[in-house]
């Protein structure tokens, strides 16, 4: 080999660098996170009662040796897959196995620390547990993203996740974990809060769709109105939610005081009425803006052709313009639904009900477990709504840009 050959080819790759390059970067980061959770932070907090500060406990302190080692071995295997395997289904399976191991360890720790028939003691998930769960959750999400599942498969995965979770809860696996203890204190209050939460989110969404869709169509047809309407809705969007609830209390209270019919249908200064009105107002901008954007996306030639073929204005709107705009409009509805599920939590402050009742109750009593009882279902609800509507949008959007 001559010198010029060497120059042209450049230096040969150093040994070992290819093996290093094969290490998955995200896997490495998540392994570090998980290891920190496992070895540096407490897995559970042991509390003598619900408001006392926790006494941190490690996995090895709580579980029998074989169980602690089993859990750690499982997590080590998950870390190996996350670091070295490129096969997405394998990564998903490993991550799910990790989630199951961590959840089982939590349940086992709670059972081990709780003496029989003792309802005073609380075993709460510790910082280590949450960090592990976050790392594994990101690993699951990443694996699913790499598999590029279609909309149907994503909904199926979500349903599977919810079903397994519901089964475990119904079976009583986590009954000794602090959050479930809070649930057991008043299960009927939880059911009521869930119903209120869903009703408030969906009800305000439905009302907003009924108003915002025609308003968006109107803004599309009369471009002169567009800047005015959109900036008015924008201003509403900038009012902080607590302030808006407060602002609405006065006029709605006055309405209830002076119009018997309004009071009869349940309109009051506090409670569900101001919550629904506020959520409705927040919902308008995303739906109106996306309706306008969606209709704008429809090519003028297509609309011209539809009218030229002899469709009426209404037929053109319903069977051409709105259908073509639907994916964008649904994206707006998705934004609103997820936003509402989150905002309803704040509505508990003015007596609107929902999971926020537990959050604010928990803050008031310094009971973190009660806060989690409100926060966890809210997150699950918002996440499920996002997955479902994303799948729907993708299913409908077969028109190339």
């Amino acid at each position, binding site marked *: 080999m001559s010198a010029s050959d060497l120059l042209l080819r450049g230096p040969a790759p150093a040994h070992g660098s290819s093996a290093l390059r094969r290490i998955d970067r995200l896997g490495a980061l998540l392994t570090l996170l998980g290891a920190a959770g496992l070895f540096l932070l407490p897995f559970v907090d042991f509390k003598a009662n619900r408001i006392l500060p926790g006494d941190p406990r490690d996995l090895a302190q709580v579980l029998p040796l074989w169980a602690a080692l089993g859990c750690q071995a499982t997590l080590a295997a998950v870390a190996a897959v996350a670091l070295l395997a490129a096969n997405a289904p394998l990564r998903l399976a490993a991550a799910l196995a990790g989630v199951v191991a961590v959840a089982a360890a939590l349940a086992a720790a709670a059972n081990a620390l709780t003496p029989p028939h003792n309802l005073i003691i609380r075993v709460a998930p510790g910082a280590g547990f949450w960090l592990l769960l976050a790392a594994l959750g990101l690993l699951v999400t990443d694996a699913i993203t790499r598999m590029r599942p279609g909309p149907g498969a994503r909904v199926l995965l979500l349903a599977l996740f919810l079903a397994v979770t519901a089964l475990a809860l119904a079976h009583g696996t986590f009954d000794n974990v602090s959050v479930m203890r809070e649930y057991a204190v008043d299960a009927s209050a939880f059911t009521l809060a869930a119903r209120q939460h869903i009703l408030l989110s969906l009800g305000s969404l439905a009302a907003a769709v009924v108003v915002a869709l025609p308003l968006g169509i109107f803004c599309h047809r009369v471009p002169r109105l567009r800047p005015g309407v959109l900036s008015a809705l924008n201003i509403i969007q900038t009012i902080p939610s607590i302030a808006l609830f407060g602002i609405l209390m006065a006029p709605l209270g006055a309405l209830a005081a002076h119009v018997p019919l309004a009071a009869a249908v349940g309109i009051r200064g506090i409670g569900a009425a101001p919550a629904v009105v506020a959520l409705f107002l927040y919902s308008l901008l995303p739906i109106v803006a996306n309706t306008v954007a969606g209709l704008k996306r429809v*090519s003028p030639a297509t609309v011209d052709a539809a009218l030229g073929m*002899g469709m009426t204005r209404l037929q053109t709107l319903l069977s051409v313009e709105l259908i073509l705009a639907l994916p964008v409009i649904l994206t707006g509805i998705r934004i609103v639904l997820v936003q509402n599920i989150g905002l309803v939590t704040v509505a508990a402050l003015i007596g609107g009900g929902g999971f926020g009742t537990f959050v604010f109750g928990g803050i008031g009593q310094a009971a973190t477990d009660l806060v989690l009882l409100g926060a966890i279902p809210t997150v699950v609800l918002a996440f499920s709504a996002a997955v479902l509507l994303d799948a729907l949008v993708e299913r409908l959007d077969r028109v190339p840009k």
Partner: protein
Amino acid sequence: MIVIESLTKRYGSTTAVDAVSMVIERNSITVIVGTSGSGKSTLLRMINRLIEPTSGRVLIEDRDTASEPGHLLRRRIGYVIQGHGLFPHRTVAENVGTVPRLLGWEEGRIRARAAELLGALQLDPAQYSEKYPYQLSGGQQQRVGVARALAAEPAVLLMDEPFGALDPIIREKAQDDLLDIQRRFGTTIVLVTHDIDEAFRLGDRVAVMSEGRLLQYDRPEVLVTRPASPLVGRMTGSAERAMRLLSLTTAGEAALPLAANGAGKDGLLVPTSASLREVLSELLWRGSECATVVDADGTPSGQLTVAAILARGRPA
């Protein structure tokens, strides 16, 4: 027959179309040509009342178009636009079936008609019916647009710059196809274009518009030989008028009797449908003086000399 009577469209103080009157014969292709802003599209869109005229009226087969709701009128008139305007969320077959479905035809008849039209436009129904518009080439999309416009067997077909989005080679093919379609279905076609070559190539009659007014409306050769005004002369390209005239005459029409000695037998053979412009160009290229005109089956039917062709390039 379409009768347009002093049709006018005003937007505020500007007059888009100014008292245009013309008669469009049945089973013909009429081309409205003009620069952008000449009012040609507005005129076309007043025929199917996508734009309502300010004054004047349109009669189709002696019936005032204002006598029925606009959308019902439009279901009887085919309409093709630049960039085809196909419905992106519907398959080719569904696109073609749009107007029959609006008219309440039964499904079997709609499917049969769609298949017939796609076949006539050289799109194999088995292969293309279930495709979506984005899966087709520009030329194929344009043909589906034509098939959709013809689906409910309209007597009148309006076309607004139908070939404007096609590249030159596909455009020429599409123009030939349109001539075939017109012959096959006997449709009365009104076509708007800014391309004067296209107007001369397709039009049985050509209407020249400028600033909302109809400057001249006549057979193409009359526009070339006797332009009504210097403006029409400029728009039809007076510098090229001799060649344009030659392009409007076919070899068959201009052929001289075959010479007894069979001159040119060894030379150029041209079909009767070739234009004199093409024959002259080919003769110049070869440096020969004489071409033989042959029938479709190849038998010589006449001959053409350079001198005879040149004589045709002057107004009679």
